[in-house]
Every structure is written in structure tokens, then in C-alpha cells.
């Protein structure tokens, strides 16, 4: 493992049984994530993207293969995950939600409050610090979701389609914010998305995954200079070519996924995760 490598996956395979049949979610994934890079993952639905992130987050374990995550600072949490959908605690205020990772680490109340305030300031959410999530809009909730992961200051940031449920305007605003925060921290990040635009806006590299069983189909380097901006991104030379290339790779897999779906209609990935976590709930 060389010194610039933050994550190394070797022959990572995940199998499980659903309804009596063996399903291979991930098959021999070999992948290294460079320190400080923003890696986007695209792939057809049910290709195991979320499973991959969950393994890295320590929420599930692989069937075969190995994962190394480099821990530079043992004080820091290894990973922090931004979950798909609503995952901020309804029973905590905005401030408490943002500071949750710090609370788990045992940071004093005063200190974690100060850090959370600082972060909320950046996001323009200070006046909502004492509000409860049910009082907030979907966009604000997702911001807090992202903020919670950043505030805990992990070695690796894992984001599972954090903006997937948002409307177009909110998504654009949050993408721009994320870009700003990330470019300020340069934290090693893995980001799942369905949007090629989003992948090209945020990513240094884009991993295209195959339909189930999930494998790495290709890796596309996004050589668009930073700092990037949503407004000028599409006019950047090379954008269209990259977009086309990723879409061509993805299209084949999406069609393949559709074809197999018609044949044996596999269990949807979200259902599977629910089931898995329930079984493993301890």
C-alpha cells in the first residue's frame, strides 16, 4: 500500500441469499482510492454501489476479499457516511445533530457546540441551531446530514446519493455548497450518484460499475480544473466528451440490468439492505 493510497480494495466480493437463491452483489472489486481525491461512483440501480459504501462504513462485511483504510490519525473516525434519505435524528436539535459525531467521540459539550456553530455559520443555518428537524425543509435536512459527516472530521467521507431526493433547485445549491466545503478540506471522498452531471461537477475520477454482479467496468478521469463551478461546468472543454463517454459505458449496463430484471426480477437493493441490517441488528 503506497503512501498516497487512502483505501485499497482487493478482490472484494459480497454475496448473500435472497429467497433461497444466491445473489452476488459485488464481484472481485479491485480499487484504490487516492488520498484527498473525490471519487464518484455511477452504475445501474441494484449494482451494489450502496453495499460497497456500507462495507467501507463498517455496516456490513464482505464475503471475500480485503479492504484497507489508512488511518493517519487514530483520533479521527475512520469513515463518516451521509446516508441516502432522511437520517438526521428527529429527537435532536439541528446543533445536536451536527455535533453528533463529536459527542460520540467524547468532545466536551462546550467545544462541540462551538464547532457546530462554526459549521452552521458557514451553511447559513445558525438561526436554526435550536430547531428540531420536523420544522425544516428537505433541503435543510440534507445540508445537516452532510454537515454531520463533515463535522466529525473522518479520514474518509462516504456519501450515498445525498441529494437524490431533492428537487432541482435545492440540488444545485447543495452541490455548490458541497463543492465549496470539500475544496476547502480536500477530504478523501466516495460519492454515489445517478447523475452524470453531478459526477463530473464533483469528481476527480468517476467509477462506472457494471450491472449485477457489480464490478468496476471502467474508471474515467475527470480532468476539469478546480475550483469548479456549476454555471461554467458545461462550457468547459472536454465536458461533453466526458459526459458522452460515461453515458455510453453506463447505457450498456443499464440496458443489461433491465434485461435481467425482466428475466428474474431480483430483490430491490433497498429492501435487501433493510433485511440485512435487521438480521444483523445487535
Amino acid at each position, binding site marked *: 500500500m503506497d503512501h498516497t493510497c487512502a483505501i485499497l480494495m482487493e478482490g472484494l466480493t459480497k454475496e448473500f441469499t435472497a429467497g433461497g437463491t444466491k445473489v452476488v452483489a459485488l464481484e472481485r472489486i479491485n480499487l484504490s482510492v487516492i488520498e484527498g481525491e473525490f471519487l464518484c461512483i455511477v452504475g445501474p440501480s441494484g449494482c451494489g454501489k450502496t453495499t460497497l459504501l456500507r462495507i467501507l*462504513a*463498517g*455496516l456490513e462485511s464482505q464475503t471475500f476479499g480485503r479492504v484497507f483504510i489508512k488511518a493517519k490519525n487514530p483520533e479521527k*473516525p475512520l*469513515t*463518516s*457516511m451521509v*446516508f441516502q*434519505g*432522511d*437520517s438526521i*435524528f*428527529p*429527537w*435532536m436539535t439541528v446543533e445536536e445533530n451536527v455535533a*453528533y*459525531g463529536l*459527542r*460520540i467521540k467524547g468532545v466536551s459539550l462546550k467545544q462541540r457546540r462551538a464547532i457546530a456553530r462554526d459549521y452552521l455559520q458557514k451553511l447559513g443555518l445558525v438561526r436554526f441551531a435550536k430547531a*428540531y*428537524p*420536523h*420544522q425544516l425543509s428537505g433541503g435543510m435536512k440534507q445540508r445537516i446530514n452532510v454537515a454531520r459527516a463533515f463535522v*466529525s472530521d473522518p479520514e474518509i467521507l462516504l456519501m450515498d446519493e445525498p441529494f437524490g431526493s431533492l428537487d432541482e433547485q435545492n440540488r444545485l445549491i447543495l452541490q455548490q455548497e458541497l463543492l465549496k466545503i470539500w475544496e476547502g478540506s480536500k477530504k478523501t471522498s466516495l460519492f454515489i450518484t445517478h447523475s452524470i452531471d453531478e459526477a463530473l461537477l464533483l469528481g476527480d475520477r468517476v467509477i462506472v460499475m457494471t450491472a449485477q454482479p457489480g464490478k468496476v467496468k471502467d474508471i474515467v478521469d475527470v480532468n476539469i480544473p478546480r475550483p469548479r463551478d456549476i454555471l461554467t461546468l458545461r462550457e468547459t472543454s472536454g465536458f461533453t466528451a466526458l459526459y458522452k463517454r460515461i453515458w455510453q459505458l453506463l447505457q450498456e449496463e443499464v440496458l443489461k440490468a433491465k434485461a435481467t430484471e425482466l428475466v428474474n426480477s431480483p430483490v430491490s437493493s433497498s429492501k435487501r439492505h*433493510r433485511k440485512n*441490517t*435487521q438480521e444483523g*441488528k*445487535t
Partner: protein
Amino acid sequence: MSMEILSFLSPSLILVLWEVFARIGVVDTRLFSSPTRIFCTLVPMIYSGELLYHTLISANRIILGFLAGAVPGVILGLSMGLFPPIRVCLMPIVSATFPIPKLAIMPLILIVFGLGETSKIFTIAIGVFYLVLINTMAGVMNIDDIYMDVAKNFDATRYQFYTTVALPGAMPMIFAGFKLGMGTALLLIVAAELSAAKAGVGWMVWRAYDMFDIEKMFVALITLAILGYVFSYILDFLERIFIPWKNGRR
């Protein structure tokens, strides 16, 4: 405003009708007394301190019994909700013993704990315990897995799991259990004070029955109603403090 008057008027009307019918002899006052007669019994009992004495004794038993049932109910309910092995071990025992009417166990409780305070407190505790336990467990099991995942991803310890996810997440259901338990506690206090008690509001009811003192019996019934109201008010108040995130959502 007119609605408030209406809600005040309807019970008042019943009292007035009761009084009128009692006076003209439609209602048998030997059996049902009358509002003024009950009032005339009530006032001296308040002044002499007799009513307060019995009320405090019953309230004390209810509170102690409630705590003795609710605290282990919450702890065990959380554990059973969070840890499948514990649930699998204990659930059959809970399912088998829960349907037994608590009144049917009372003689056994009297034999085991004697005629003193313990048996009364225990009777109430056991009634509260099951309701709180089952509600707490259901509350934990209903917490969305995603919150468990967040805590796990942040490497929360078992203790942190309890305090930051399981307990607050199950809190609305726990309070629903408390409220059900309080209803049962009021039911059981009367039964518990039936046997081997020398004081208490429930005892007053039975004593009035023995003495055929209908007015005193009504005084005791009114006191029980007020006790029930006060306890549910206290629980509502605590709920607002412990579940601040629910405010304004109802």
C-alpha cells in the same frame, strides 16, 4: 367561547337534574344520594384532613408502584428491543404471563409479600411493568434502521446507543406505555386496598360499602377521578419536557 360554555354546561346540567330528581323522589337517595348531600359530607372531610390523609396514602402507593414497575419496564424493554437474543429468551415468558389478570395474582402476592405496603405496591408495579415493557420494546423496534446505522457508523458504544438512539427514539411509545400503566395503576389501587388495608381512597370505597355510607363512597370516587386527572396531567407535562421534538407537530 360558546364551546367552552357548552362543555361546562353539560356536566352542570346533569348535577342539577340529579339534585332535582333526588329532591322530588325520582332518584332513590339511599342508593344514589344527591350532589348536595355528597358536598355536605365532602367539606368536613376536607377540613378534618381525613380526605387528604387517605389521598396521600393512595398517591404514595401509586407513585411507588408506578416507579417500581416503569423503571424495570423501560430498561428491560430497551434491552429486548435492541438485542434479539434477549428478546428471544424473554418474549415467551412475557407473552405467557402478560394475559394473566393482575387481580388474579393478588392472592398470591398477599401470600408472598404479606399484608403490608409491599404487596400493594407490588400489585400496582406488576400491572404497570408489562404495559411499559411491551410499549418500550415496540418503540425501540419501530426505530428506523437508518438511525441505528448512523450510530454504528460513528462507532457509538453500547451505552451511547441506549442514550442517543434507543431511548429518545422510543420515548413517544414509552410515554404511551406510561399513560396506559397509570390507568391500570388506578384500577389496581382500589383492588389492592380492598384487602388488608387500613387507609387509602380505595379503602374508603370498600369501607363505605361495609358501612353503607353512600355519600362517603361518592367522595372517594370523586377523589379517584381527581387523582387520575392529576396523574395524567403530570404525565402530559413530563412528556412535553422529555419529548420536545414533538411539540407543535400534533
